[in-house]
């Protein structure tokens, strides 16, 4: 399976994603933001970081970058596009995913482990995954998902809510919502479920020595589903 990780100036989880993808068997290539073409891939990843410094709204400049046209074309033709953290922010800025990521409710950067519940397994990302709840890691200042009432209704009706913040038993409540996200939303799909944006980082939890190894379930499953 081939994957491509896009590097924007200011991306800083590009290497971590590269390490994770390779560990689980992807042939990964790094693609520079100023390039126009993306090599043939089964998966494109927009990694975390602070693209172009994020001095404007997070992800907004990346959403207008040279490479992003190719990403949009790839996504619109049904290709798998995964955006993590800043990558999720970029996907909302391009309009590939609805809504916006606001500043965290308590106006602080938050770095810690969280649990998320998988809400929909009818897609390439989570089909056959052996878990209902994953322990992943978040590190962000703007992860407070928000969208209009109509958009939320549409997200629910189309089963687009991918993962939601919860406790280790899958219970969702304000107490387990780290950033104030609407309906505890940690990640969403587009209607076709080929695009996934989420705030938690599966690539930071891929072995026992790290704060969790639940990222393994995510990546192992993903490559299996792509075969």
């Amino acid at each position, binding site marked *: 399976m081939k994957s491509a990780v896009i590097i924007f*100036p200011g991306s800083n989880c590009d290497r971590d994603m590269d390490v994770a993808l390779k560990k689980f068997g992807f042939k990964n290539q790094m693609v520079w933001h100023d390039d126009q073409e993306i090599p043939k891939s089964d998966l494109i990843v927009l990694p975390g970081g602070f693209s172009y410094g994020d001095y404007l709204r997070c992800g907004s400049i990346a959403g207008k970058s040279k490479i992003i046209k190719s990403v949009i074309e790839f996504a619109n033709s049904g290709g798998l596009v995964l955006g993590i953290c800043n990558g999720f922010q970029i996907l909302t800025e391009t309009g590939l995913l609805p809504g916006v990521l606001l500043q965290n409710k308590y106006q602080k950067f938050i770095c810690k482990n969280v649990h998320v519940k998988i809400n929909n397994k009818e897609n390439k990302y989570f089909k056959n995954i052996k878990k209902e709840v994953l322990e992943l890691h978040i590190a962000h200042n703007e992860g407070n998902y928000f969208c209009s009432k109509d958009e939320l209704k549409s997200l629910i009706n189309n089963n687009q809510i991918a993962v939601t913040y919860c406790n280790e038993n899958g219970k969702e409540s304000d107490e387990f919502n780290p950033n104030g996200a609407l309906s505890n939303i940690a990640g969403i799909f587009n209607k076709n479920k080929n695009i996934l944006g989420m705030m938690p980082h599966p690539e930071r939890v891929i072995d026992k020595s790290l704060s969790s190894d639940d990222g393994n379930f995510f990546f192992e499953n993903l490559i299996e589903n792509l075969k």
Partner: protein
Amino acid sequence: MNEVNEQIAIDHGLKKEEFSKICDLLKRTPNLTELGIFSAMWNEHCSYKSSKLHLKKLNTKGKKVIQGPGENAGVIDIEDDDAIVFKIESHNHPSFIEPYQGAATGVGGIMRDVFTMGARPIANLNSIHFGSPQHPKTKNLLRGVVKGIGGYGNCMGIPTVGGQTSFDDSYNGNILVNAMTLGLVNKNKIFYSKAAGVNKPVIYVGSKTGRDGIHGASMASAIFDDKIEEKKPTVQVGDPFTEKLLLEACLELMSGKSIISIQDMGAAGLTSSSIEMASKGNLGIELNLNKVPCREEKMTPYEIMLSESQERMLIVLESGKEDEAKKIFDKWNLDFAVIGKTTSSKKIELFFDDNIVAEIPINILAENAPLYDRKWKKTKLPQKIKFNKDDFKKLKITEVLKKILSLPNISSKEWIWQQYDHTVMGDTIQKPGSDSGVVRVHGTNKAVATSVDSSAVYCYAHPLTGGKQVVCESWRNLISCGSKPIAITNCLNFGNPEKEKNMGEFVECVEGINEASKFLDYPVVSGNVSFYNETKDKGIKPTPAIGGVGLIKDYKKMITMSLKNNENLILVIGKTEGHIDQSVFAINILNEKKGPPPDINLLNEKNNGETILKLIEEGLIKSAHDVSLGGIITAVSKMAIKGKKGFKLNKLKVLINKFDYYFGEDQGRYIIEIEPKNLSKVQKILKDNSVHCDEIGLVTEKDIILDKEPIIHIDDLVKSNTNWLKEYMDK
């Protein structure tokens, strides 16, 4: 151009005698630009004029030392061609004036020091000290500093894996912000600042030069007064995004062979970077200031030379490599300009609008800089306090313990470190809030442990003992996670060196640091001095901060401090005499601030530490933690809190008052958790190495059980320990 006179020199922070020395050396009066250059090079921050004589005595050599003090950072060997570049630096003065930018640029500056040498930063730490929590400025300063540190480090994508925060009245008018960075480099590909060869192009890269931070280093060399707010323009503004680009661009250029020398523009900007490179290479340097990329219009040579705009580097390239280098910086959208060349004149010569605007022999600026042997006063060891043990009878151990765990200086700092990205780069295997932060050496089985420590209370009571203690504490923190300590960096934060008492504190702390460093073979490889931490005649407590680095050869053998399994035994390693003077118990519970700090026995320190490493190597230790503030029971409680376990303590078998035993702060001690079946093996190793040990209790599921006291639940201790800072900051 302005006529320079003595008053203008004094306004630049120079002393009368220093000005006449300049005139003598130059055999003329300097012009304003030249005066600016002298003031930048001869201030305390850049010249180390009060500290140099004493720093020279430090133990800086060792088998693992590749580069000691004198470069941008120190370098140590961690085997297999890998080396760690590391240093700590202060940004105290700017952080008090503008906490966010002050702290942010402190972090940016220290990272540049590390990647200037060719190393990719892999871990950040910080040591931050604030005034009393009740002081009206403390909360905002703390909030700003933490946001600034996070804002810069998080954007750079370097994990912040450890640190230390304290509160003390003596920092009310002078907070301390010390930032430390570790970088990883191949030991055959280290870059230095020494220029070589004549007529080599001098390149400016990074951000443009603006009017920010002019005289920053001079400001950091002065005491504060009521008008300190007016100094805001001397604080630099950080741009972590540009620094991230600069990091990637520099590392890309460094993978080739075109760099002769490289130096970041830190304190005193273009002035000190160009002079240092030329001085080390015994060369001259010629710069055309019209070529310097400027952010603002009509900047004068004076402003260009003294600006402390951030995210800039100066490089001496091999001739003919300019285009190749420029391509890389263009790719990363950074300024790149050839601004001059190296010369054989041994002078710094500056041109602007086709005129020569400064011409100074470099040896005058560097080697002839003033050097002071300041007067200093010795601090006598205070008399031991005779505590009235009857007073203790009113106290309950569990109540005292809960109170200690909730003290500002003991309570959990999670509110702080949760705002730092500590997991980016995917190699953090021990996070903040532990004895050490631990990161794996990417792609290997090795890991590097690192911590930063200071003990201002002990250093204030008796600087010599305090100096030794901080080094030992650092050593213990590294041992506790199973790493072999290799070397240290020090950030020496002190008051006004022109006062005999403050100077004495400096001299004796350095002596203590040196003694411990020698005995433990734990050399000092880099560091920084920050004097003049004084406001309106009130100075800080002497606060040397020690950053330590150790190596774990197989990261799977790393030890954490969380208690693991019920029924496991809890042992105290090292002898307990019950030293109460200067302890948290004495100061905060008994309200007794006098007396000597606990004594340091370096022989036991070394032996105990090395024996712990043997036990870890044999796989006999389940968890470990050093005993520090709050004594044995506070240490065990922190292990319990981390592991969400309880513990039961046996009735004491020693003839020491139980308060002295549990809360005393004798040094050189550790708490370890072992499996009962291994007790005799452990005891044999301890005995063979003549290490004292007390078996004090065992691990329980959730209950804290102490002889004769009501049982409490671990959640009570968790609450005591975690609530204070959250409530203080968010309420």
